[in-house]
């Protein structure tokens, strides 16, 4: 018991220590503030379906796009040692393509939605490989390389839209964005779970995880060992492209409207934060996608908590910043090391005293 406690206090959950502690603290804080905060109710929505409702559902549902993007971003971070800041703009492009294909004829069927999604995927993967090429082949800093798409992405989305805010309404889109009839869990949550499983299987049946880590830790050493590091980096951006297409399509489906200016606005910063809170090394190398997913939920819990406390949404960002600074500093290697040393000393002293007392 003492051993596990010691292990936990000195960072025994590994990189997951900080995100797990953060989310536990947020939950405790909310339970003290309002014991009914996490109560989940069952209600009927306006389509007559039985659905789950409550803050907990809002958090899990609202963080879906962020969680999906964080998965892809983790991979890019690990392989390239840098972040893609164009995910929001790329999602706007993917969302625009999605809507464009849907609006090509008035009838919207399930097959057409699938086609639209595949088109969005292809476009997002092309833009992903554009970023990937700049990073992997031309060795440009990821943040600089993706700055290009970050700058022009929303203009491109505007061209595709050909208008400010095209709308699209159909039961199928509604099912993707909110609830499938008969299933009380919001569909975006199911999509997150599906994506997580896909990643899990990908890591289980391929060497992607190992290769990505080794490329991230030392690209040239990996290359000498026969790993095509250029390809791995490129691949990470293409996989992120798929995540972007999924997130963009969900974002559009939620409201049945694409606004190229506001769709997933500033999500790139939250995504990078999620990766950082997840305890991943932003300089590349070892990574845990689970950490980033928890990081995404931490950010969303924070936002919803602040909204529930009626903090003005202009101030929300400032409060978020304070909490995030704390998390990142606590999670930094320097503090972790100091804390670990302190704890082991503290525990040693105590057990020493206990032994003396017995004698």
């Amino acid at each position, binding site marked *: 018991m003492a051993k596990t406690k010691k292990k936990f206090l000195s960072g025994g959950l590994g990189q997951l220590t900080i995100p797990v502690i953060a989310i536990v603290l947020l939950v405790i804080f909310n339970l003290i503030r309002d014991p009914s905060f996490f109560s989940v109710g069952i209600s009927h929505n306006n389509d007559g379906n039985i659905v789950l409702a409550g803050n907990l559902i809002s958090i899990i549902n609202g963080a879906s796009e962020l969680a999906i993007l964080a998965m892809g971003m983790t991979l890019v971070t690990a392989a390239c040692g840098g972040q893609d800041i164009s995910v929001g703009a790329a999602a706007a492009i993917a969302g625009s393509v999605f809507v464009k294909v849907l609006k090509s004829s008035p009838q919207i069927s399930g097959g057409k939605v699938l086609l639209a999604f595949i088109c969005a995927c292809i476009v997002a993967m092309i833009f992903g490989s554009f970023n990937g090429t700049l990073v992997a082949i031309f060795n440009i800093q990821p943040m600089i390389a993706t700055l290009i798409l970050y700058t022009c992405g929303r203009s491109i989305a505007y061209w595709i839209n050909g208008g400010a805010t095209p709308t699209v309404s159909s039961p199928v889109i509604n099912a993707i964005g909110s609830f499938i009839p008969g299933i009380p869990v919001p569909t975006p949550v199911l999509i997150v779970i599906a994506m997580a499983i896909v990643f899990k299987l990908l890591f289980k049946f391929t060497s992607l995880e190992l290769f990505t880590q080794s490329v991230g830790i030392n690209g040239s050493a990996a290359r000498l060992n026969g790993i095509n590091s250029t390809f791995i980096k490129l691949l990470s951006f293409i996989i992120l492209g798929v995540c972007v297409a999924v997130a963009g399509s969900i*974002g559009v489906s*939620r409201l049945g409207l694409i*606004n190229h200016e*506001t769709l997933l606005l500033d999500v790139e910063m939250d995504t990078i934060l999620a990766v950082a809170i997840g305890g991943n090394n932003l300089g590349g190398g070892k990574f845990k996608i689970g950490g980033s997913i928890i990081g995404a939920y931490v950010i969303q819990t924070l936002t919803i908590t602040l909204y529930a406390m009626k903090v003005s949404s*202009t101030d929300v960002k400032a409060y978020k910043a304070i909490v995030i600074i704390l998390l990142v500093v606590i999670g930094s290697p320097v503090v972790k090391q100091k804390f670990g040393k302190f704890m082991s000393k503290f525990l040693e002293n105590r057990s020493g005293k206990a032994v003396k007392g017995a004698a």
Partner: protein
Amino acid sequence: MKRFKAMAMAGVLALSLVLTACGSSGGSGSSGNSGSSGNAGTAASSSGELIKVGVVNNPPSESGYREANVNDMEAVFSEANGYELKTFYSLKNDEQLQAAQGFITEGVDYLLISAAETTGWDEVLTKAQEAGIKVFLFDRMIDVDESLYEAAVVSDMAKEGETAVQWLLDQKLDTYNVVHIQGAMGSDAQIGRTGALDAQFQAGTMNLVVQQTATWDEAEAKKIVESVINSGEDFNVIYAENDGMAKGAVAALDEAGITHGVNGKVIVMGFDCNSWALRELLAGSWNYDGQCSPFQAQIISDIIQGKRTIDSKIIINEEKGFDATTITQADIDTYGLGE
């Protein structure tokens, strides 16, 4: 050397992308129209001579409002109507200033401006006056002396808010519990549309349930309304300062099974009169949509052609508010923005 080559190639790649991007947002309109000005001489005109008009505006990509505004300008100041139109679109004040300077040097007859920022225009407008160019402001005011422009055709955002709030008062609800979703704080539209409602909160005729800015973001509006629903607080009015945010709010209501619109529990109010929003009104799923008219071109054209006299330098564009119970398809076709 190889590395250098690679870097250079990437540089060119990056530059070309950025340039095309800028080209689209900044100069597409101007280049398109300089083409048409080339064959201006062939166009038939009643007076023989075309009136040269330079328009400095924000890019159509800014919003549905701007898109309609730009289209309206291009439709009214057409060659068929006896105009030669030069346009420049940018969100940046300094670029707009340069373009205005350029129009003055080129020698236009009239300069029409919707400025990105309210300051910094004194010098350019003085130069225009010296060159004998008449200046009209549209949509947005500029902080300069009244003598520097002929007239300003603008929307009175405060009046839009008052019209909407008056409509709400006319509904004669027993109690008003209002969820107020604001636009980007400090923007003209936000200040105007918030003012009238704030007055009601202070007077105590309406209760404020929550007042939050979603900075025109639909998804953010949805989150705000979700959090109100989750808190269990009662509300019967959603006052969103644009259509997109109203749509976000309605999505949250739908998921929570709260009825809205005509005969619904919650009254939904939006602004901007996008066509899709007016269709929501027609379907009875929203209650009210306030107009912010982007159509100033005809008024300015009438003044230029002497069909309208200037009584006061500031001309308030006439605007409507639409009620779900009285709106018709014809209204949507006439006043709706976009498709």
